[in-house]
Structure formats: C-alpha cells, structure tokens
C-alpha cells in the first residue's frame, strides 16, 4: 500500500528519498483516483526495491497542493533524488506508468 504522507513528512520521505519517488495527489471522492489505486499497488509490488510510492490527500495537505500547484486530482509527480522529473494529471494505463518509471530508475 502506498504510504500516505503529510506535509511535515514530505521533505524527509519524498524529497529526501534516494532514487525514484512516485507521489499521487488525490482526493477521497475522485473516481480516477480510485481507479489508480490498484495500478499504484501493482507498481509498488513490481518495483518495491526501486521506488517509493506515496499519496498526499489534498483535503488535508493544502500547503503541499499549493506548493506543487495541483489543479486537479489525481496529479502524479515523479521525484528523482528530490527533483521533479515527470508530472501528469488524470488516470493513465499501467504500462505508461511503467515506462516513466523504467526511464527514470
């Protein structure tokens, strides 16, 4: 399960993660977010040694949503050694996500 991180943990767990971190900014009532849950879980299983998967609930972590200019949910940010290497909004296919991960590992 992707770990839910709060504003206070974000710097250490995501920015400070050595390697690739995938963060989903989500909201509870968002349909495409629900659809992406099993996809994220599958990615986490497959790349467990190589990626860190985190979720940020925009209803509670408003400052983070502001900081990263989140305009809709879900929005996915890919951090490599603390820097953003990719971002997109909306549901995507598992193999597209795998491609992004593979090219940034």
């Amino acid at each position, binding site marked *: 399960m992707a770990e839910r991180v709060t504003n206070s943990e974000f710097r250490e767990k995501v920015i400070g993660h050595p390697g690739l971190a995938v963060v989903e900014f989500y909201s509870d009532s968002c349909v495409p977010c629900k659809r992406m849950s099993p996809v994220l879980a599958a990615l986490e299983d497959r790349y467990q040694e190589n990626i860190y998967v985190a979720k940020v609930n925009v209803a509670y972590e408003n400052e983070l*949503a502001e900081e990263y*200019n989140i305009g809709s949910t879900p929005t996915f940010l890919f951090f490599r050694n603390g820097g953003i290497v990719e971002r997109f*909004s909306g549901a*995507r296919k598992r193999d597209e996500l795998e491609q992004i991960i593979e090219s940034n590992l």
Partner: protein
Amino acid sequence: MRDLLIIGSGPAGMSAFIYAKRANLDVLVAEKEFLGTGQIAESLQVDNYIGLVGKSGYELGEAFRQDAEKFGAEFYEGKALKITQKNAFWVTEFDNGESVESKAVIYAAGASHKRLHIPGEDKFLGNGVSFCALCDGALYQNKTVAVVGGGDTALDDALYLSDIAAKVYLIHRRTEFRGAQKNILKVKKKTNIETVLAVNVTGINGDSRIEAITLDNGNKITVDGVFIAIGMAPQTDVLGDIVEIDDYGYVIADETGITKAPGLFAAGDVRTKKLRQVITAASDGANAAISAIEYLKSSECI
C-alpha cells in the same frame, strides 16, 4: 475483422457486451477513458436501480465492468473519431491513428459535460477549470470559486463548495434556477454563496493560474477556480450524417437501437428517449445487442 465493435464502456456498452458474447460473437469494446465506466461513476449513490438501491455509482459501474470481464471482455483504449461504412462493414477510426473493422457497431458513447466554449476554458481545464466539485473542491480551501449553471448539479456543487471555499459565486444565465426548490432554499441560506443571475461568463482570465472571470454585463469577478455544471451533451459528432440526429444531438432510434444505418446501432444516452438513467442504458445495451445479432444473422455475416 470483428463481428461487433461496441463503442462505450458504460452500462449500455457492458450490457450489450454480455448479450453479444453469450451469442458467441467476436466482440471488442472501445473506451475513450482508461478503465472507464461512464457517467455512473460520478454518482454518489444510486437510489433507483432495483436490487441495488443504495450502492455507490462508482461501485455499480465497477460491478458492470467486472461482470463483462467475467465473460472475457476485451477492451480497446481509444476515442472514436470517425465511423464510415465500407462495402458491407464498418471502419472506426480512433484518436491513436488506428482503425478497427467490424461487421456491426453498437454506438454507446454516452454523454459528456457541456462546455462553455469561451476563451480560457481549454487553457485552464484540469488547472482551475473543473467539472467535478467533489474531486477538486478540496483544492480551494478558503479561496474564491465560481460555479456556472442553474440546475441541481450546479446548486449541489455550490453548496458543497461553500463548506470549503471562503466564497462561492453561483452564476446562471437565466433569471431563475432550474433546480429543486429545496436546493434553491439551501443556497439562499448560505451566507458565502452569492448568486449572479441573468449573465453569461465570457472569459476565464489568468496567467499561470485563474485570476478572474469576465461576464457579458461588463463585470469582472476575481476567482481562483471555476466549476462548470451546465449539463450533459450526447457524444454523437463522430457519427456525421450516417445516422439521423435530432435537434439536440441525439441519434434517432427506438428501443431496438436500430438507426438509419444498417449494422450501426445506438444504445444508452446517445439515443432519443424519454428517460436517461442507468436502468434504461442497461436495457438499451441488451436490446441493441439482440438487434445486432439479428442483423448479423440476416446478412449472413456469421
């Protein structure tokens, strides 16, 4: 070549798939949205589908899809752009540049949110312009938003957002709201909802973020987000003139789904009918599948 291409993975498409598959047709289901289940997914709760009252719309949509998957449904990701008849079969072109050939087509692409078609709408879509208050409302804590529309969805959105945002402008082009009276009364009681009537929004302005909207009375309102709730429109543009379309964009077809074009059937929200609900969409899918099966048999395609 497939026996049948079903365009749409909502209740009509999924129901059509099960009937067609049980008749041993070789069926492909095309969907424009990855893992889509149609508009039902956005319904908080379904209160009028017998046997399933109280289920969430999302769960119901997933259940339809999972049932189709049990029958081996094969999905194709792509938005249909053009459908043409070539000799005795159909060619459907998709936005990925590919095309699919089939002996028959069931068109069940449903309806989508109506757009304002004003400057700034496309630019800020997904970044300040939203069709889903429940999804994106949380991003506007203590901010100012506009809701555009006058029906129950617009009223519900304004009420929902008024508990999150500091201020909600509810903007409607007519002098009275169309929604239920109880919703209108609730809106009137909310001190942070300001209704703006008899005006049209003519533009959404801003640099990297929305800063304001302009109205056709010359006024400008400073907002951080815009929620559009002006209804749904059938997705029938791609059919061109191969079928008959009424003044509102619906394919003219009765409950058999049979259209002017032999071998192309319409099901669900895209066709002319009185009641557009999940239950009638599922029923349409079944009927259209039977029509397609009969068509394929009679034309000895299978």
